């Protein structure tokens, strides 16, 4: 079973510097342009092309314009439902967040391995999702303290809390509030990584099953392959859902900052 070791499900997450940029630095910090950065760039360019295609600004929209307007309308509705009229100003941020994550998740699922390229899902790295999560959390803090000053702390004391319970509730609410950036970033990272690992493990089963020769091996391969197809469909769903969850939770947190309770 020497060949089994070759299918390493974690190898796909390896970050490699590209184009000989591994020594790029700013103030001593390495900023090598890696395969992760490359796929961020690809996602950004794809999103730029997608939105630019919807910029014809026709009164009667074509299909492409309709699709782009559908996404902006979706984000607009999300914010209007969760925050209200004050949510309008967050549309650019939530749209960027949602579309960037969505494009990253979907591009990471493109089966480019068939032509030898290696798609990289940078949303399966908590260093990447963490940046987005911390950014969202920072905006919540800034907006909250800007709008409500120190009154923002009343967020941690729900209405109708008995007086004796206030210290305890305050502590619990504060911790649950401070956990938000971690849960936000880790949720996306874990969901994307789990899916990709699962696909890789199953593909390992397919290869090892075939290599095992006649017998139970090919049966395992066929079953695993069928399961892979189903999980690919599931992963497409997860890609959309995780992007939506990230945008939705950010908008809910922004609602706390805008409207307190």
């Amino acid at each position: 079973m020497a060949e089994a070791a070759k299918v390493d499900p974690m190898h796909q997450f390896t970050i490699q510097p590209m184009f000989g940029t591994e020594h790029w630095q700013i103030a001593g910090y390495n900023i090598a342009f890696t395969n992760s950065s490359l796929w961020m760039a690809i996602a950004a360019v794809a999103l730029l092309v997608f939105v630019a295609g919807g910029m014809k600004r026709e009164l009667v929209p074509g299909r492409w314009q309709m699709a782009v307007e559908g996404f902006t309308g979706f984000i607009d509705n999300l914010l209007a439902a969760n925050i209200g009229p004050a949510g309008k100003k967050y549309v650019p941020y939530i749209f960027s967040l949602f579309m960037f994550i969505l494009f990253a998740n979907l591009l990471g699922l493109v089966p480019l391995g068939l032509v030898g390229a290696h798609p990289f899902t940078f949303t399966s790295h908590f260093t990447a999702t963490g940046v987005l999560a911390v950014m969202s959390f920072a905006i919540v803090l800034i907006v909250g303290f800007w709008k409500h000053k120190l009154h923002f702390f009343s967020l941690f004391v729900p209405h109708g809390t008995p007086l004796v319970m206030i210290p305890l509730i305050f502590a619990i609410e504060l911790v649950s509030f401070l956990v938000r950036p971690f849960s936000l970033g880790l949720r996306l990272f874990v969901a994307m990584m789990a899916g990709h690992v699962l696909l890789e493990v199953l593909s390992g089963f397919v290869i090892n099953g075939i290599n095992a020769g006649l017998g139970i091996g090919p049966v395992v391969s066929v079953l695993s392959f069928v399961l892979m197809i189903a999980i690919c469909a599931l992963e497409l769903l997860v890609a959309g859902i995780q992007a939506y969850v990230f945008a939705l939770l950010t908008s809910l947190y922004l609602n706390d900052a805008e409207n307190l309770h």
Partner: protein
Amino acid sequence: MPQIAQLAETWSSQIFWMLVFFGFIFFVIGRGMVPKVMATVEARDQQIAKDLAAAEAARAAANAEEEAWRVESNRQRAEAQAVVAKAKAEAAKASETRLAKANAKIEAKLAEAEAKIAEARSGALKEIEKVAAEAAGDIVTRVAGLSVDAKAANAAVKEALNG
């Protein structure tokens, strides 16, 4: 797990490029393009609302026009009927006066004619009386050989004629 194994060497690069590309997306796409897309949607919604309002206004105007036309036509019909009624009344009056005038003329002629007839009749009666008296006088003279006074004869005739 490369996410943790490579953390020390890659975290700065990951954060840097994430900020670069997310910043690009936020400022160029989110701030630059999305508002334009949404403005287009807004403009379309407003256009639709405006067109609907214009159509509604046009419908109301058409209704008002029709109502005004109906009122006008009713008024004109009433006017026409008044004119007809007045003409009828005038004609009836005129024919009545002419009829009355003709009637009066006829009546006058009739009265004149009746007077003439009466005169003629009384004339004729006197003639007959006179003739009868003369005849009676003559008859008496011839039959009885008496000469009768004309006056007596007249009285006798009158008595016999008038019973």
